[in-house]
């Protein structure tokens, strides 16, 4: 509430536009305000779009509006960062991190909370995996009644690991993420080569191409995920490989669903008597979709970050002075990769 603003408001760069990084903090920005409003709108409209699994399409346009607001905030944020060339990289002044870049410490601390998020999700998984009997076991025990849904645990791996074709999207994704961790490091390596040791045009091309490769691998990951969840795919007839023409169903069409109305689709049939056991697998499906979905959202966040990095690299902004920005993103990206290395065995194989 002090009246000190007119002492220095002339020096403030626009809260919409690029910063002048020369003179130090603070830099005003409209981005936080817009992003908060966008997030609030999104959650509000999501609450209108779905209510206890019931869909109400009237709110769909507003969902897109709120996503556009969030995107606008991100654009303002990134636009302000475009002029950042690494000359104002703040460094730690106190022990024990003296001279380490401040933003690097921030990223490590951020990853700490990410660890807690995935730990909580895995705790939920362990609780239910241990606490609810497996559907196979229940079915074989015969302890069920025709027509009455049995609450039991059906790991997604039962469907996914049932054939090489079913597991193919997840397996390819695993390699996609591991390779993308390699390409991001290559981008950093090229950006970091000392000035003079490499032609600047070669550096620009290498950095942005490696970043674009990372972007493509991340996009491949999400595409395959959608195929595995919702779309399924077709295996053609290839004679010399001994392949017969058949369809690989998505998890959705196999009845692996969170929705109360659909779980009846998931049933076991006793070959001998023809009796059906209806399995209520809502909890297992919720766990699978939310845990792998949270990881997928992190990949999507990575794509958003990579879009900015790739564009900035295309303008030739990365050199040894500013290369460390790629390193910060790489820390996050390796973490997302590492989480997948845990998610894959727990949800796809076991």
């Amino acid at each position, binding site marked *: *509430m002090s*009246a000190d603003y*007119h002492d*220095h*408001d002339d020096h403030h760069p626009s*809260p919409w536009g690029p910063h002048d990084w020369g003179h130090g*903090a*603070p*830099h*005003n*920005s*409209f981005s936080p*305000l817009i*992003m*908060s409003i966008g*997030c*609030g709108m999104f*959650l*509000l409209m*999501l*609450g*209108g779009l*779905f*209510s*206890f*699994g019931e869909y109400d399409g009237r709110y769909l346009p507003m969902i897109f509006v709120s996503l556009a607001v969030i995107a606008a905030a991100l654009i303002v944020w990134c636009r302000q960062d475009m002029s950042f060339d690494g000359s104002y990289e703040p460094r*730690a*002044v*106190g*022990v*024990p*991190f003296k*001279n380490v*870049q*401040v*933003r690097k*410490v921030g990223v490590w*601390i951020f990853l*700490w*909370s*990410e660890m*807690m*998020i995935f730990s*909580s999700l895995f705790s*939920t998984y362990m*609780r*239910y995996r241990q*606490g*609810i009997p497996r559907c196979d076991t229940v079915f074989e025990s015969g302890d069920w009644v025709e027509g009455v849904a049995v*609450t039991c*645990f059906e790991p997604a791996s039962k469907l996914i690991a049932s054939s090489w074709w079913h597991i193919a999207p997840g397996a390819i994704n695993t390699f996609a993420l591991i390779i993308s961790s390699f390409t991001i490091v290559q981008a950093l390596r090229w950006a*970091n080569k000392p000035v003079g040791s490499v032609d600047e045009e070669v550096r620009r091309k290498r950095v942005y191409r490696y970043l674009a490769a990372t972007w493509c691998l991340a996009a491949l990951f999400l595409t395959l995920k959608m195929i595995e969840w919702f779309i399924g795919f077709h295996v053609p007839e290839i004679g010399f490989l001994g392949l017969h023409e058949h369809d690989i169903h998505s998890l959705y069409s196999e009845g692996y669903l*969170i929705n*109360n109305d659909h779980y009846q689709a998931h049933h076991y049939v006793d070959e001998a008597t023809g009796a059906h056991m209806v399995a*209520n697998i*809502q*909890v297992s*499906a*919720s766990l699978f979709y*939310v845990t792998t979905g949270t990881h997928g959202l992190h990949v999507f966040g990575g794509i958003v970050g990579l879009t900015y990095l790739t564009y900035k690299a295309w303008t030739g902004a990365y050199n040894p002075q500013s290369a460390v920005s790629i390193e910060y993103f790489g820390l996050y990206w390796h973490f997302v990769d590492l989480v997948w290395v845990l998610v894959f065995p727990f949800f796809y194989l076991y």
Partner: protein
Amino acid sequence: MGGSAVSRRLALISLMAIAMIVVPAVTSLPSGISGVKDTGCNCHGTEADPSVTASISGLPSSYNASETYNVTVSFTGGPAIDGNANLGGFNLWVSEGTLATLDSSTQLWGPNEASHTTEGNDQRSWTLEWTAPVSGKDVDFILHTNSVNGNEGDGGSSGDMWAKAQVEVTGFGGELPEADPFKVLATLIVVSSVLLSIVVLYVFYRNNPEGFEWERFAPWITEWLTSTDHKKIGTLYFVQGLFFLGVGGIMALMIRVQLATPGAEFISQGYYNQFFTLHGTTMIFLAAMPLIAGFANWIVPLQIGAPDLAFPRLNALSFWLQPVAALLIFTGVFSGGGADTGWTGYAPYVVTENTHAGVSMWAAGQIMLVASSTLTGINFLTTMAVMRAPGMGWFQMPLFTWSILVANLMLFLSIPAFGVGLIQVFLDRTIGTAFYDVAAGGDPLLWSHLFWYFGHPEVYVVIVPAFGVISEVIATSARRSIFGYKSMVYAMAGIGLVSFIVYGHHMFTSGMSPTLRFVTMLTTMLVAVPTGIKIFNWLKTMHGGSLVYRTHTLWTLGFLVTFTLGGISGMFFPSMALDVHLHETYFVVAHFHYVLVGGTVFGFFAAIYYWYPKMTGRMLDERLGVLHFLTAFISYNALFWPMHRLGVVGMIRRTHTYYITTDDFQALPEWAADWNMLISVSAFLFFASNLLLVVNMIKSLIRGEKAPADPWGGWSFEWMTSSPPPTPSFDPHNLPELKDANEHVANEPSRLGQMFRRLMVDDDASEGGSH
């Protein structure tokens, strides 16, 4: 039920069946009519006949809750012939309350539908008993009567007539119908933006009344909306925190009016549930946390000699998420369906469709607050780790900064669990996942674990910063350094460590394993050790110093009394046997208000009086301050102390009302009503006395005395800048330096620090001297 009753009933049913099959000639179904509420008795003619008149008598024009009325239904006219065995029948449907039979001429189809019996088929009027509901809603009575001639042709119903009567009994002003939440939200946003604009314009005018110019308004308001300066964001947090402290306080007053007298109906149960839920959520997340964040923003960079926080723009995002989250949390209230789950939001109730619709947005708002707290955590932990001024080692950090470090570490490591739990609840309520759906195998206790894994550290997150404030204030007021600085730091760190393994004491009555109960009982008792160390250190600081009685000193002394009392009442809960008795009673309410109000709020009132001159450059009025302290301290104790006793005699927490009549199952002793009245009166006094603080702050802004840089004689970094401090707070190219007698020790990295050094890649070396 005896066997004879069963056989009698079976005999009756078979008799009825035989009667229905063998005697098709009977008219107006002699065994009773059901399900005709909407269709009418169309078996006795397609339209109601005006020559028959149906009537209901014995009903009041407006009813009292739970009272029983004798209702007489009758008809006149029509073809009915006196003396006929089947001359008339009726069907009565009520929308609320319960019906009961008085004699064998009537029977019930359910609590809200009645008809005649075979025995009562020869009458023109019947009498029933109706017990009024407690909801207070308006009640509809729909009556259909048949007038029957008893002929035998055409299925026995030709020439019969029927009539309908409808009576509405008004309730005592029950719940309003739910409004469209989006319309109400839009109205709310418009109204509050108008009010907010008026306040903002007034502040802009007061800011510089002589040089008032409209051209300067846009840059001024933009500066506040876009600022990334830690001092401006701190002020925004501070204003938000005080505003919601008032909102939460008003909710508490509503609760206290309702509880002032036994059996009261001031607010309905549905609203009461919203009030206590949102009182809790508001006070913890929208009042206490922003107040703490406000002071942390303002003071921490100043105390460690940093130009700003490490990530100023993320800091702005942390703040702006909060008001938007507050809007979401309150969305439901204004449409009549705010969250009614309690701030703990226990599963499985929180994911059922019986809850108010506002619960979804209540969860969504809290998800945003989790995001805000996570960003704050990243920011503060980074700032404190890397931006301490040269010369300031970990053990030269002022205790307030230490307390913020410990609090943020606790919050940062626990809040993701809460966030994940909230996301699960939100998804359960929206897209229909089944994390806490018991029918699908969901485990409600999992929510309790995720919630309390966060919830217990959370209560320390709000109290530990108050410890920091008290340490600062007491050292300055006693005019000496704090007694046992290192033990203070270790005590706070100890509280932080133990906070993660005590949360089981919130779940003693949930049926968790006795071994775990025992473990959490011991660890909870362990918390008393570091807390006790802190209290003795504060006492010893005063003992060794020479105390100056300023307003903030008074609040600190008040804190020492009330917090210690709250700490002692807290030691009743880890003891499992006592906990089972005291669980969910007002003893719990008394305990946590003693630590949260007597601890956190008193601590932060001390902080306001201590740092306000530094923040605004104006002194507060000491006389008003002392008056505020005296009235607030007395009314506060009168408000919360009696709750201990009420809790011990069994007054249940979160209960809509209570009874002192001796025939009630959960009746309280008669004196409980007097204590409750005292509590309610004190609550109003406490609220009013806190308005003195608001008056004091506004008055000081307008014509307060100019504050010097160091009005209290403090010696941490913040007192070395001007009041208010410049922007950036310190020149990044010329940081202050902390000189220490043990400088060689302070600047040497510790064992741990040396280990870190070896692990870290030396960034200068890898860059090969490129610049």
